[in-house]
């Protein structure tokens, strides 16, 4: 994890990303102390594996969601893409180890296609991303519910290892998630499209006038987000050993957005990064594990999570207000890629949740 802490997306992001990791460390410390008081070791192998396993699934989804949110878009279809991918993987592989590669390829193709459609609907048809991806989710849900009445397909043993193998306390799936995060960070920092994502998310109009094809980064982000959700679907299939259609009811779409925002990425695009998101995912996983150790009522967990997410974002918002006070920034971006109409220049950027 330490290598991630040094890989920050922007020099001036040091503040928020640092804060997120500070929060993570203090939550781990407090959690360890609380668990120790109950005679448990939070950092014992079993609990570490539990935390890392929890975070790998949400991690994939949240990394993709980060890219989309950086472009000032949103993807509410990730949960359905996960469910579809797990079914596609399981039915393509059909229990035959020789077809593992084919199954993975099919998942990537299907999820990339969904992402492409999402991106095109958002940019070309100018449908609001919230509605476009919600509609896409409904379309996939209808297909899944009609076509499959329950778990479908069969995952060969060899691929199920992806879900269960671990080196000491590090599950293979968590390592793959971290690798995906590093790739995403490199993508954002090293490639032209990565830079363009920040530009388009910050201000699509200025980006356009600077000669950027504003549609390309948005479409790319949607494709990558769906592929990341597809990877999460592969992981689900590997864990369950079969295609599970009901994953979409687990709320990964909204939870991934919460993780991204918890990681310090600005919901209206242009600021933030994947490193923070990974910390956000880990914070949620650590909290879950601590709640489990303390045997907190599962319903009370929901209450606590809601309060914690709101509180954390309120703290970041306060910091962002401070920073914009010292940095004069013409924050008001006109018309996102989804074709809104002039947002005001914001003295305080976090004011609106409705996306234009």
């Amino acid at each position: 994890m330490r290598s991630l802490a040094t890989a920050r997306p922007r020099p001036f992001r040091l503040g928020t990303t640092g804060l997120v990791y500070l929060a993570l460390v203090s939550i781990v410390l407090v959690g360890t102390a609380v668990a120790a008081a109950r005679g448990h070791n939070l950092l014992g192998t079993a609990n570490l594996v539990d935390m890392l396993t929890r975070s790998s699934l949400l991690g994939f989804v949240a990394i993709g969601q980060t890219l989309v949110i950086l472009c000032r878009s949103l993807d509410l279809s990730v949960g359905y893409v996960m469910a579809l991918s797990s079914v596609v993987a399981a039915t393509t592989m059909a229990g035959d180890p020789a077809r593992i590669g084919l199954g993975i390829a099919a998942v990537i193709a299907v999820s990339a296609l969904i992402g492409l459609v999402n991106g095109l609907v958002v940019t070309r048809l100018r449908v609001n991303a919230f509605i476009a991806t919600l509609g896409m989710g409904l379309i996939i849900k209808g297909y899944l519910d009609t076509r499959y009445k329950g778990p479908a397909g069969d995952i060969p043993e060899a691929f199920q290892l992806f879900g269960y193998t671990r080196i000491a306390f590090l599950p293979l799936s968590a390592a793959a998630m971290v690798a995906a995060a590093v790739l995403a960070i490199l993508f954002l920092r090293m490639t032209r499209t990565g830079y363009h994502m920040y530009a388009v998310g910050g201000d699509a109009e200025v980006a356009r006038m600077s000669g950027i094809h504003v549609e390309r980064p948005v479409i790319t982000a949607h494709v990558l987000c769906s592929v990341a959700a597809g990877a999460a679907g592969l992981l689900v299939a590997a864990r369950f050993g079969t295609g599970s259609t009901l994953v979409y009811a687990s709320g990964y779409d909204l939870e991934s957005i919460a993780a991204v925002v918890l990681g310090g990425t600005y919901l209206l695009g242009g600021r933030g990064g994947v490193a923070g998101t990974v910390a956000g995912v880990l914070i949620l996983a650590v909290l879950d594990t601590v709640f489990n150790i303390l045997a907190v009522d599962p319903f009370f967990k929901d209450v606590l999570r809601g309060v914690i997410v709101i509180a954390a974002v309120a703290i970041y918002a306060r910091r962002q207000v401070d920073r914009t006070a010292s940095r004069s920034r013409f924050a008001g971006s006109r018309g996102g890629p989804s074709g809104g109409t002039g947002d005001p220049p914001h003295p305080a950027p976090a004011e609106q949740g409705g996306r234009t």
Partner: protein
Amino acid sequence: MTRTAVPTAPGRIAREAVSRLVGGGSGTVFALLILIFAVIFAINPSFAQPPSMLAFAKQAAPLVILAVGQYFVIVSGELDLSVGSLVGAQVVIAAKLIDGEESRTVPVILLMIAFGALVGLVNGLVTTVLRVPSIITTLGTMLVLYGAIRLWTGGAPTGALSEAFRRPGRGGIEDLPVIGQLPWALLIALAVGAAALALTRSPYGRTLIATGDNDTAAAFSGARVWRVRTTAFVLSSLLATAASILIGGFAGVTAQVGDGLEFMAITAVVLGGVVLGGGRGTVIAAMAGALTVEALFTLFNQLFLPSTIQPTVQGLIIIAAVGYAARQRSTRSP
């Protein structure tokens, strides 16, 4: 679906009327609504009878009321994801506290109104004063309400609603000539609609829309942006409370009763041509959007469409309708 609505009528006057109807923005939803009803009537002429239409109105009333509340929030530039779990919470609260006793109906309804106002106030203040994006605030409220209600009831709702509580949702003025029963739900929805229309034309409503359009300009013009937006959230939660009374009476008590309603309300409002991000759209179109969503479900039932495929068709129609409206808007004002 919307393709067929493209004007082909001969004659300039007709053409003008049609082009106004399908001219993007808010007009599209009315065209879509008429189209869906035309198809329903063609399949099942008996649906045009007053009793069927009134039954439809009774069923659609809660969503119309929710759409009005969501409209206020969306037009002010925010989003309210908490209405679904608020409806669920209110129904469960009502059942648990009333527990079948007629005499408790009114006090419990007053308590529900207070609770609704409190939730809206928290949503509004956290969004405006603490500057948390409303999608996160209301997502948090949604989680908190969802968890708290199940924690309180131990997972399964207990108690029962009183007859008086159920009357607005399922009762009506009985034994009228021709139409039979005139549902209270329809009258309540009409009253809410009329009040909402009056409110949008009032100084508050104009300030609300101005705030959604450009909150800096509104602030410079003397509007207290935080107060305007917080009021919108309170209105949304109060209307969700009203909808929960209708839904509780109509559908009965389960903890899942509100699941997904927030997305349906947002869909209805956006289908009505109201722009997410604020400042554009009318409350009448939002209500028509809610009717369209309900009419769509009725159409699915009339077509004997398997219930599992319905989301697919719903998703396609929403994307197509919103895309169509957006295309019209962008070509009209380049």
